[in-house]
């Protein structure tokens, strides 16, 4: 697909600075993966401790996002990257912003889970199983595409996003119906609807990350295909 430049830069500190930026993105992604898993654990096991962990650790992710911006700007001002290097820096900064928003969704899920945990468990909780699995694997695969510079895996993510959107719509309809029959549990149904919406957003961010990876690796813009000639 792409001719990855094989050699390192003649100025070795340029290579070092790009490697540093890349490892910051990788570090941020694995933290976000962990937070997301903690939130889900807190939700499914009805354990506030996991939720609290995820909320507390979000601060470090925010700091890492700023660090990535800083490192990206530093590389641009010191080395004026072009071609694949330029694309790598730009997409790293954009990916950092999307990971931060995935982590925010993990916090949202954790907060809603704590509210759900205050009440008896609704049988409908299991309806979230599929969207949870889909959102988690989509984000994991986005991170893996970045780590492996795998544009093929990234492109493939986009189709799974449609499935997640559809699941969210169906689930919302079911829960709204249930809400009407069982108004005593209305707040909990609303929380489930909200969590489903968070999962759907995570899928969107995974797709954004995938688009940035495709751009970095192959210089193709796969966003909004209908708007491009």
């Amino acid at each position: 697909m792409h001719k990855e430049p094989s050699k390192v830069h003649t100025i070795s500190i340029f290579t070092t600075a790009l490697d540093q930026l890349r490892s910051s993105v990788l570090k941020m992604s694995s933290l976000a993966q962990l937070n997301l898993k903690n939130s889900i654990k807190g939700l499914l096991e009805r354990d506030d401790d996991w939720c609290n962990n995820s909320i507390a650790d979000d601060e470090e992710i925010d700091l890492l996002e700023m660090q990535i911006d800083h490192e990206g700007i530093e590389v641009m001002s010191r080395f004026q990257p072009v071609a694949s290097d330029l694309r790598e820096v730009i997409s790293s900064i954009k990916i950092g912003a999307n990971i931060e928003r995935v982590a925010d969704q993990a916090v949202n899920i954790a907060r809603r889970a704590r509210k759900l945990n205050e009440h008896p468990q609704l049988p409908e909780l299991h309806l979230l199983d599929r969207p949870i699995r889909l959102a988690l694997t989509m984000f994991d695969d986005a991170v893996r595409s970045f780590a492996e510079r795998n544009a093929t895996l990234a492109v493939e993510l986009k189709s799974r996003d449609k499935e997640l959107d559809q699941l969210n719509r169906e689930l919302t309809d079911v829960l709204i119906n249930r809400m009407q029959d069982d108004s005593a549990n209305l707040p909990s149904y609303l929380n489930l609807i909200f969590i489903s919406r968070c999962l759907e957003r995570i899928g969107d961010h995974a797709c954004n990350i995938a688009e940035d990876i495709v751009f970095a690796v192959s210089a193709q813009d796969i966003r909004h295909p209908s708007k491009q000639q």
Partner: protein
Amino acid sequence: MTTEASQHPLELTNDFAPGESNFIKVDNFKFFYGKKEALHGINLEIPSRKVTAFIGPSGCGKSTLLRNFNRMNELIPGVHHEGDITIHGTSIYDPSVEIIALRRRIGMVFQKSNPFPMSIFENIVYPLRIAGQNTRSVLEETVERCLRSAALWDEVKDRLHDSALGLSGGQMQRLCIARAVASRPEILLMDEPCSALDPIATAKVEELIIELKKDFTIVIVTHNMQQASRVSELTAFFYLGNLVEFDNTRKIFTNPSMKQTEEYITGRFG
């Protein structure tokens, strides 16, 4: 600065397809210094009224090709060429082409500014005087026009009759550009015109280049990648006497097609 081009820098990023309204056509051109083949069959079409940048590592043949456009390389003993170079469809080697006339159509600016040891005024009118033009009003009009187009008028208008050698390096370089445009050439060749200049003088020359392309076809050799991306619409990358890639400057600097180009512009060479 007051030029229109400077207010519309985005103009530079317009897509431009190579080959469109081509002007200088290089056709399977080989060049030899004695037995040494310095250019190995170059094919290239340079469009009119655009800035084309030549980039590539030292010794790849950028200056050699540039200096063939006005047949300056023929002054070196033992050289010969194969293939052809045409301008507006006419071969520059056609027996009907007069070398003096050819050089008048093609101005050249060198790395080291080379003002003549005479006044600023006389430097600019030199090509006109050579051509027999001595009418005072014509000379004065030319001096003002050329100095203005080289963005130098305001700085030197009160000392036109002082020696050109008293100018700063950046001013001398712009004076040489003014002199190069005095004979109203169609093509302006520049070989590393900013390599001895500070950033401010460089910026002034670059702005001048962008302004001049309205009237001239400009080919610039530069080792400064940022300069190539700032001033040119098209970029040709040469390596070891071959043209490796020729494309839109924006394409070259965001997503070049050839691995060698990518390695060179990202600083992964050698």
